[in-house]
């Protein structure tokens, strides 16, 4: 726990954390007012990698924006593919064949595991543990190889199309994914949990640090593992079911403590749940087409306002699409999960020691291009 916090601050100074600080994983800048080791005020400054994707979307037609979606959350790019496809399919009334839905779920969940593994590695690196990175990257590499096989890229995927996906999965992908599930299931308890989760240094660093209350999460619009680590049972996959998630059996890990340890545990448990989802989806994978027939090249959805949400590794990603009947989106707003998750940082970090504030920052799992868009 923290040392008793000073009642009033005598001499303060301003410390610039970032925009090129390794602990912020990108170009986030936090202006911290410090009193000795204590944070008096923390003020995130955004926009260092802002690219105005929302204007880019208005300039081209619907399909032309597809590759940009992966450039926002580069760690869970397929979820951004999925979210954009979902809202356009909703607007244009496109039905997706069942096999394509299953392939979408399998690849999105593989990507989610890769994202959580990278978060795990980077978070522990922030806390001073170097070795876990090597284990996590070893496993993540397997996923990237599998996804590269069918999507053609390793990080910024553009794999989904309106009405399906662009290439079919082959037997080698399926057997490789099954082998990966067995491999990770064996490594999770031994290499991940025994080495790190039970480690006393980790527990001392993150237990009871950065406690976010349930109410705070709701008022700040936090979602994903941040909300679930504070006892809110809110996961878009169950809450607002989309794709074939209702047909698959999985649990949503929820921890009530609200501290960094709870968020850590939520993500670790989610890896196991994602493995369960992939395994079932592989078993159920039906035959059939992978893309809907007769999707016009230039979509012209009718005028109207549409919203679609998906669960990314970081929380609820929403697309608000306004169409005016033309071939370009009239307005596309991206509601990125970490934008909201980071907005509560200032309130919670106040009064923490700087080392704890960094551990807390790491536990939020920030991807800066997604905040800045």
């Amino acid at each position, binding site marked *: 726990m923290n040392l008793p916090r000073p009642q009033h601050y005598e001499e303060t100074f301003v410390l610039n954390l970032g925009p090129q600080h390794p602990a912020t994983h990108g170009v986030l800048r936090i202006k911290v007012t410090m009193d000795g080791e204590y944070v008096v005020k923390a003020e995130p400054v955004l926009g260092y990698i802002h690219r*105005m994707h929302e204007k880019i979307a208005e300039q081209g037609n619907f399909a032309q924006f597809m590759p940009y979606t992966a450039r926002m959350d580069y760690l869970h790019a397929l979820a951004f593919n999925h979210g954009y496809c979902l809202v356009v399919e909703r607007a244009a009334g496109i039905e997706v064949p069942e096999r394509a839905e299953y392939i979408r779920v399998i690849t999105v969940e593989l990507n989610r595991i890769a994202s959580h593994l990278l978060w795990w590695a980077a978070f522990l690196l922030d806390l001073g543990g170097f070795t876990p990175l090597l284990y996590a990257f070893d496993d993540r590499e397997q996923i990237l190889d599998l996804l590269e096989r069918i999507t053609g890229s390793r990080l910024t995927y553009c794999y989904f199309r309106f009405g399906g996906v662009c290439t079919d999965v082959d037997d080698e992908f399926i057997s490789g994914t099954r082998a990966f599930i067995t491999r990770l299931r064996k490594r999770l308890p031994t290499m991940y949990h025994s080495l790190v989760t039970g480690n006393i240094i980790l527990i001392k660093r993150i237990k009871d640090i950065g406690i976010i209350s349930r109410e705070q999460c709701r008022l700040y619009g936090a979602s994903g593992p941040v909300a679930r680590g504070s006892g809110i049972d809110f996961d878009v996959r169950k809450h607002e079911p989309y794709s074939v998630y209702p047909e698959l059996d999985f649990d949503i890990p929820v921890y009530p403590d609200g501290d960094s340890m709870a968020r850590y545990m939520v993500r670790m448990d989610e890896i196991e749940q994602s493995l369960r989802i992939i395994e079932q989806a592989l078993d159920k994978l039906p035959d059939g087409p992978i893309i809907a027939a007769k999707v016009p090249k230039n979509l012209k959805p009718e005028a109207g306002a549409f919203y679609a949400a998906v669960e990314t590794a970081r929380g609820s990603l929403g697309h608000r699409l306004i169409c005016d009947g033309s071939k370009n989106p009239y307005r596309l707003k991206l509601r990125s999960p970490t934008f*909201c998750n980071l907005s509560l940082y200032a309130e919670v970090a106040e009064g923490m020691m700087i080392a704890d504030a960094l551990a807390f920052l790491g536990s939020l799992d920030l991807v800066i291009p997604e905040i800045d868009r």
Partner: protein
Amino acid sequence: MDARNELHIAITNLFTAPEQCADGESTAVPDTTTLKNLDHARNGADLEHHCLPEQLPAAAGILEGQGLMLESITAVDWIEQQEFEVFYDFIHTDVANYRVVLRCTISRIQAELPSLCSVFPAANWHEREVFDFFGIHFNSHPDLTRILLPEDADFYPLRKDYMP
């Protein structure tokens, strides 16, 4: 009757209750034409409420009281009508599959809205973003400054008449 229907009826009743028009001069008889039920599978929301700018804080207060959370705020520039339309998206965190949208149309010339920061702290950054991109002013916002664009920018990029 399930929780979702109960919530829907409760919110609809609160929206149509006469005391919502606090300033007295709005309407004595509640105007129900501003409320619209939507198909979740089609539009991604269940209830849509077109409200006047002065009704916004009260409407958001009702949703806050019912346990909804503010997910996003965004605007659309309807340049032909010389109007901005602002969308507020809400979702319930416990009752599954329930979304509410508040829509508010304002003039493009005098683009001002009341801030929701006192109801939802989440509104702080979202309103800054809308100000940043559209130049819409949110009255009584604690810190209405640019958030994603450089602080010395002198343009509003998502206005339809802005050309880079």
